[in-house]
């Protein structure tokens, strides 16, 4: 579904060129949930942005369903680090922005929106404005509006990174439920090992800058998953394995600075 082949990305910084990503090869199968895990500054968000169509590779190619990516599209829904809602629109208007923009009929998207708002636990908040919501609820709106697009690919850029620990686990469970229902192809960027293992079918550990994929680990934990799984011995074994990989990279990254 997502094919990243030989991708490198250079940035010009103070007249010097900085290599952010180097020779990335990544294939995400249809309906697969892949987490990109790495230290901060490793270019994982850059990689996600290139799949989204916000950024483009210096070398190599990014394809989704065989098509090279030229621009952002509702085919690839993105949940951002911040909720990035339109603050002057109500929850409902934020959620239906996509279908409305594409000229869908209200009779078509309204019932769907009600259903999705229900799924993400926002029933009763349709007329609230983003400023009236908590951080977790805003991010639910961010997820709901992507669900409205019915994208086959969902890209998530540390969507729960800014939330407190309590809210974060709630949101992770919510995402698991939502994903069980819709089964999109997901690319999920995070620096949280437990989050990556809890959610993903496969975790790609990235190296410090220049970002490369150091190792790809299959997470063979039964689905549907719940938060309790994080206490299991299998989970713990995986966690230690990833932790060792990450620790190596964090130390390398620290040494670079």
């Amino acid at each position, binding site marked *: 579904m997502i094919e990243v082949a030989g991708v490198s990305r250079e940035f010009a910084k103070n007249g010097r060129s900085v290599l952010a990503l180097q020779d990335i090869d990544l294939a995400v199968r249809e309906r697969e949930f892949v987490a990109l895990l790495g230290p901060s500054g490793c270019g994982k968000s850059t990689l996600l942005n290139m799949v989204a169509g*916000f950024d483009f590779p210096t070398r190599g190619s990014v394809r989704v369903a065989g098509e090279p990516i030229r621009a952002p599209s509702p085919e690839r829904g993105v949940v951002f*680090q*911040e909720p*990035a809602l*339109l603050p002057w629109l109500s929850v409902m208007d934020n959620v239906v922005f996509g279908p409305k923009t594409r000229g869908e009929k209200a009779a078509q998207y309204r019932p769907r929106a009600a259903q999705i708002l229900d799924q993400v636990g926002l029933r009763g908040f349709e007329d609230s404005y983003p400023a*009236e919501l908590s951080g977790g609820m805003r991010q639910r709106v961010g997820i709901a509006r992507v669900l409205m697009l019915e994208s086959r690919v969902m890209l998530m850029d540390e969507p729960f990174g800014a939330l407190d620990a309590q809210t974060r686990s709630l949101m992770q469970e919510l995402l698991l439920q939502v994903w069980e229902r819709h089964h999109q192809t997901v690319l999920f960027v995070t620096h949280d090992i437990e989050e990556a293992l809890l959610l993903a079918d496969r975790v790609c550990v990235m190296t410090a800058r220049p970002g490369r994929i150091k190792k790809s680990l299959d997470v063979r934990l039964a689905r549907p998953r719940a938060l309790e799984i994080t206490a299991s011995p299998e989970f713990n074994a995986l966690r230690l394995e990833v932790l060792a990989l990450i620790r190596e990279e964090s130390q390398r990254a620290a040494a670079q600075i």
Partner: protein
Amino acid sequence: MKPRFAPPWFVLLPAALVVLWHFGVELRWVTEGTVPSPKQVLQSWNTWIFGSGAGKLTLSPYSGTWLDNVAYSTRRVLQGFGLAALVAIPLGLAIGWNRLAARVIDPTVQLLRPVPITAWLPFAIAVFGIYDASALFLIGLGAFYPIVVNTTHGVRDTNLLVLRAARMMGAGPGTVLAKVVFPSALPSIFTGLRLGIGVAWTAVIVAEMIAVKSGLGYVLWDAYYVGRMDICVATMFSVGLLGFLSDRVIVWAARFLLRWRALEAHA
């Protein structure tokens, strides 16, 4: 608990100033005849507004002409300001949004902006003559700069992630501009409008003093020439009041249109 009676502190300073003014004139702190007393100003202002009453013989040429002059000035301000907003908002959107527009238009705007509106006066009269067009040109030009600069600023301040979100949801350039960039810039646009209306009142007085023969600015200069300082002061108060009221109208409109921002401020 909200206190039942909030003392109106804001009247304290103006009241003190009026008292100071009154005694300053009464006790001859200033040369006699240069500054009229508050009472004199109030009386003249009253006559200026309502005339000197039926049957009374009046020698004042200003008697009962206040409303007409206020109407002249207000109309000019509204026309000039409206014209400025009509040009400056789209132009500001273009400069803020489009790199080419910014390169082509912005340097010219920045180069002309420091030229004071008063410096344009001879040029305006030479080109447009002693007509309304001169006044409208000056008012419009004066109001144009703050609106265009603030609109540009507002557009450039649009949150990058919100823009990306809109594009991800399928919004094309037109939709992004209308549904994301414009509403996002609206608070800045209103700041520009508030500054603009202030400049417009300054410009209308300057323009009417020299470029036309009606309105509060004309009365101000005329009264000065014939030594009617009481009318001059009444005019100053009139302009101040109108400027204040027009600013309030914009603030109310902003509050109505930007209700979502009030929510943000309380969050």
